[in-house]
């Protein structure tokens, strides 16, 4: 059912945004997540300054050392400093997450808008999304990597494509719900172009759920990419990628569990931070979901 928009319909989102911001600032867990992410971004940017050593320098004489004052997190089987590799790995993981989610968001939102506005293209787009959804996400990524060949770049594409259906669905349903509103009708009657309606009415409305899903998708994308690298389908040696580092430690788990554990904990921290922030954003932007 179409609802009448209040006279200040365009001012309404701004007011609710400040409400959301207030709710978010009161949520300790999501603030902790945000602070943690800010720190990780700084670490990624200033990796050469933060890392104590060269992440790919091989020193066979120092191989497989447990944590010590020289190597805070120990060394791997090539004598590479694990802490330095984790620091540089922050760059890889954040970039992979950003690009993969960027691909998913860009493609997904576009397809969702088209599906929502065009009755003719709605069914084919939804049918394609249903096919993509009929693959478990990691299997879809594996299938795409199988076609494109292993590698970190193809991993980003694969994980990104895997996240397209989620973004498409949200954008489509926001578009469908807004398309029939009276003020959109009115804007159209006044001669507003499709692009203007999308920019002024549809996107601001879809923004909140898209932000939440994008944040939570960052967690999923980083985890999926790490899994692909762990399986040997992602980053190639000697790149300092956390999943690949954990895979290096797989055969050493009996005597040197630290080799697999520290990179896994790095993945855990960044994924948890995105999950905390995403949960907080969802509660803040959609108060109905709050307990």
């Amino acid at each position: 059912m179409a609802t009448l928009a209040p006279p200040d319909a365009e001012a309404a989102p701004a007011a609710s945004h400040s409400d959301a911001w207030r709710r978010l600032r009161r949520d300790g867990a999501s603030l902790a997540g945000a602070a943690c992410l800010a720190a990780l971004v700084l670490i990624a940017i200033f990796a050469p300054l933060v890392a104590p050593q060269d992440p790919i320098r091989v020193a066979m004489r120092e191989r497989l050392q447990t944590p010590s004052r020289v190597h805070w997190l120990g060394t791997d089987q090539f004598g590479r400093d694990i802490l330095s590799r984790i620091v540089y790995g922050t760059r890889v993981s954040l970039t992979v997450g950003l690009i993969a989610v960027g691909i998913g968001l860009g493609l997904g939102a576009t397809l969702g808008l088209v599906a929502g506005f065009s009755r003719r293209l709605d069914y084919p787009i939804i049918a394609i999304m249903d096919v993509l959804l009929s693959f478990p996400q990691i299997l879809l990524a594996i299938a795409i990597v199988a076609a494109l060949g292993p590698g970190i770049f193809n991993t980003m594409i694969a994980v990104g494509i895997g996240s397209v259906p989620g973004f498409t669905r949200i954008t489509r349903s926001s578009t469908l719900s807004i398309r029939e509103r009276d003020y959109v009708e009115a804007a159209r009657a006044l001669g507003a172009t499709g692009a203007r309606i999308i920019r002024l009415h549809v996107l601001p409305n879809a923004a909140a759920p898209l932000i939440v899903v994008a944040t939570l998708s960052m967690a999923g994308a980083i985890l999926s990419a790490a899994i692909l690298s762990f399986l040997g389908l992602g980053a190639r040696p000697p790149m300092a990628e956390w999943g690949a580092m954990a895979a290096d430690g797989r055969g050493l788990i009996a005597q040197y569990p630290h080799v697999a554990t520290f990179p896994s904990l790095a993945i855990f921290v960044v994924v948890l931070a995105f999950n905390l922030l995403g949960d907080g954003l969802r509660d803040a932007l959609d108060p109905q979901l709050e307990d």
Partner: protein
Amino acid sequence: MRVYIVRRLLLTVPTILGTSLLVFLILHLVPGDPASVIAGPAAPADVVANIRTQLGLDQPILVQYWRYLSSALHGDLGRSILSRRQVSDEVAGAFLNTLELVIAARVWSLLIGIPIGVLAAARRRSIFDKLSMVTALLGLSLPIFWIGLMAMWLFAVKLGWFPISGRGGPMWTAAGLQHLVLPALTLGGVQVPALARLTRSSLLEALNQDYVRTARAKGLAERLVVAKHALKNAMLPVVTVIGLQFAGLLGGAVVTETIFSWPGLGRLAVTAILTRDFPIVQGTILVSAVTFVTINLLTDFLYAVLDPRIKYT
């Protein structure tokens, strides 16, 4: 109801067709000539030509897809490039092993996850609620391979309770069961947090309903209110998610099988990708996707049976 089932069944036809098309295209999206990619860089021209004819790559693409689809419908998924065995044989054996692992993981994760969610919701804001939900959030963020490696390190290496890896035979034999425990523990463990969180939020929503207030108002014990009135209704979304979580299980199985050298579909797929054995890659992915579509179908039917309020016409 019958109409709904028939319609839902018909709707899976385009999905399965699309899935098979996507799987078919895997080979054709390969950059460059698939035949020379499969043969390797040093292969002589006649070997490449041989592979091209054998895979039918010299035919028009629509003919190729039609051939692929009709043989797949007859259970013929081609031959492995490496072992020369029928893909259907290799995939069938691996599928059963994966099924065994997934079912074991599913059963124990349900036995743990649902009671945690119910208790957390019934004692909302208690220490148990807070502790279990924090643990669940932490658990959701752990990479599955680390859970597997830690389980292996603790229970196989340090304590020696279970074998490190491999499959010991059918799950009803002692050796089979012993080998199954760690992979199933890993795979199921990843599902517990999401299941507990969902059960809790779903039950909390049910506890807010009018009929629950009525049940409480008439003086029913809280235990009965939860067990008899709220839980039944809270289980509907949980059933849906149990179905959807099979996606996670199938995906997680890839990692679990790789860690524990479990001879299932996931490990077969990963090995085949790394050795560029495309018929096997296609076979494993097709079977996983079709399995997932089937499970979704069954979940929808179960949902229709469980929820008499919704009329499917």
